[in-house]
């Protein structure tokens, strides 16, 4: 496979990683109301866990994915346990710090992570056997995983558990008064969310065969916030749609900016960045609820007893 088809397939796969990150953010931000600015950190945890397991320890790729999920969930558990008293902006700042800490560890603990050189030569599943079709097969697998995660999160949303989570989001004191163990809900939601972000990281690493601290700059977290805000906070389908819109938009601006004649490359780059900013402003101004706004199904009425 080559040419446009290969490029589009590549974008579909990359969009899938973004979509998983958006689903992760949507669960914790849209579902439980906790702002996680450390998404890039959990993304990095998964990518490094899987890369180290498969490259340094020689484990099979499946073990890499499982390891990423476990490390991500444990990371999420540790972050929530150490921030149980923090809410809102304060939690956001701590999570941002967490992501930077992960990036600095990856940069400086050279014995483990190979520092800023990064880890190259990460194996991809059946890469040699598939040859030119690897990208297409991987994109299909990624999309299948996105659909699976979306389906599971939707089930979660519609279940009593999802309703309790939203109750925590709306007012955690009321939820507590109603007898919900809010700390447990928060920890579980955060751990699941972190595991999904880590899964995205593992997928990214095995696809591109290379991870380095530079990949996990805060920029990617901002893109995902843009995706979830545009798609609709609190709705899994919105997050997926938003992620694909963002990646489509990022790539389309390449061609749009290049169509303007007589500009230097740096001006094209600046126009691309301006368009991304403009898109965010327009979405927040005209459609703050997102393209697919959350709709909360009415709670089932208890069977009448009279």
């Amino acid at each position, binding site marked *: 496979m*080559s*040419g*446009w088809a*290969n*490029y589009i397939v*590549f*974008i579909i796969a*990359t969009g899938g990683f973004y979509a998983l990150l958006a689903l992760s953010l949507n669960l914790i931000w849209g579902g439980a109301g906790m702002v996680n600015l450390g998404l890039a950190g959990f993304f990095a945890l998964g990518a490094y866990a899987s890369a180290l397991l498969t490259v340094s320890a020689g484990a099979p790729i499946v073990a890499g994915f499982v390891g990423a999920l476990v490390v991500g969930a444990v990371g999420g558990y540790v972050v929530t346990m150490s921030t149980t008293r923090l809410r809102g902006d304060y939690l956001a700042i701590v999570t941002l710090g967490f992501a930077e800490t992960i990036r*600095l560890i990856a*940069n*400086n603990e*050279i014995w483990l992570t190979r*520092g*800023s*050189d*990064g880890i*190259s030569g990460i194996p991809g599943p059946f890469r040699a056997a598939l040859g030119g079709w690897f990208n297409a097969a991987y994109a299909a697998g990624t999309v299948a995983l996105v659909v699976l995660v979306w389906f599971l999160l939707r089930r979660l949303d519609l279940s009593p558990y999802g309703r309790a989570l939203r109750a925590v989001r709306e007012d955690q004191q009321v939820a507590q008064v109603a007898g919900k163990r809010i700390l447990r809900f928060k920890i579980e939601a955060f751990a699941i969310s972190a595991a999904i972000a880590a899964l995205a990281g593992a997928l*990214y690493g095995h696809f*591109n*065969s*290379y991870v*380095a*601290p*530079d*990949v996990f*700059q805060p*920029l*990617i977290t901002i893109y995902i916030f843009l995706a979830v805000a545009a798609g609709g906070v609190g709705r899994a389908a919105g997050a997926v749609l938003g992620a694909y819109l963002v990646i489509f938009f*990022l*790539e389309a601006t*390449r061609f749009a900016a*290049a169509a303007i004649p007589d500009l*230097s*490359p*740096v001006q*094209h*780059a*600046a126009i*691309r*960045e301006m368009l991304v900013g403009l898109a965010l402003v327009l979405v927040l101004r005209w459609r703050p609820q997102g393209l697919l706004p959350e709709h909360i199904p009415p709670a089932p009425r208890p069977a009448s007893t009279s």
Partner: protein
Amino acid sequence: MTARFSRLTRRTALAAGAMTLAMPAVVRAQGEPIRLATLTPLTGAGGPYGPVMAKAAAAVVEEVNKAGGVLGRRVQLVSEDDQTNPEAGVRAARKLIDVDKVAAIMGTWASSVTTAVAPLCWESKTMLCTVSGADSITQLPHQGYLIRTQPNSTLQVRRLGEYILSLGARRVFQMIPQTPFTQSSITLLEAALKKGGGDQGSLIYDDKKPTYRSEVDQALRYNPDLIFAAGYTPDTVVLLKDLFRAGFKGKIIGFAYSINQKLIDQIGQADVVEGVYTFAPSPAADATAYERVKKVVGTDSPDPYTCQVYDHVNLVLMAIAAAKEASGTAIRDTVRKVSQGGGKTIDNAVDGIKAITAGEKVDYVGASGPCDFDEKGDIIDCKFRYEQVKANKLTLLKIA
């Protein structure tokens, strides 16, 4: 009348039909441009360097097109932004390879971006020319589809050590941010200094801090007679100011890509930067390509990356001319035939293409150095340029 007219029409139609069938092949051969790409950091941490690099590359292509192109075809340059981020860089490279179908990607700057983009290039048989310095890059299994014009850290640091000793400094303190060459820079410089009876202390700092007072204190406790400031421009501005405030009286040396006119202007105090030494890989003093780069980008001291990307474009264009084919594999197989091995000394692609078409053997001597590559894609040797800041201006000490 009508019958003849219609017969004529039929014949014309036939001829026209035959011509439309035949024409596209001819038009295509002459009309389809040779596509090349730059992938430089236009935004992000590499933002100060990438735009000028893209400009220099575009200037070379324009010159060659004015002189009639290569193999009778026009050259088209596509410039993308790697955002100094491997993830964004890979997306941009995918577009360049799949959509634009370029034969070569030139000018990748950050080592992480180069390492991320390299597999895409060798898998799709696209040539990659880079300015990244990490030693690990040429160790990748790139099958020849990668050359770099930046001397690797082993070569740079060995020369630096010799120069420091020649300045009479014995106690050296290295202050360096975390980069792909940090570890090798520290160990190699220590080895080079110890060979000449010197010694080294070192410290790795975070290049995004707003102040380096505690780092400077730690450096001064070592009581150095020379400090090697091995960062990039933004952090070195802060570091030099803090060293001045702390009253450091010894010598300071740094890379020319960080201690440049921009840094001197930004600091704006002659006392802070007076006497600071810089060094950079350089062409021989009489190399004419460097003068050409100055004219192209319109500054008196083009940075080494701009010189290197200028060399990339010239080398790639001449390799295409010599191979008579515009593919990544052709460039890989012939680039060393135009870069080294004797022949007519050439400093730009326009003259080079003319000489190659006339059947002459050429040897390119570029703006960044002699541009001779070993089989791994590293440059074999190059001269270094040593300068010193005097009254807010960089003045040349020597090229050796």
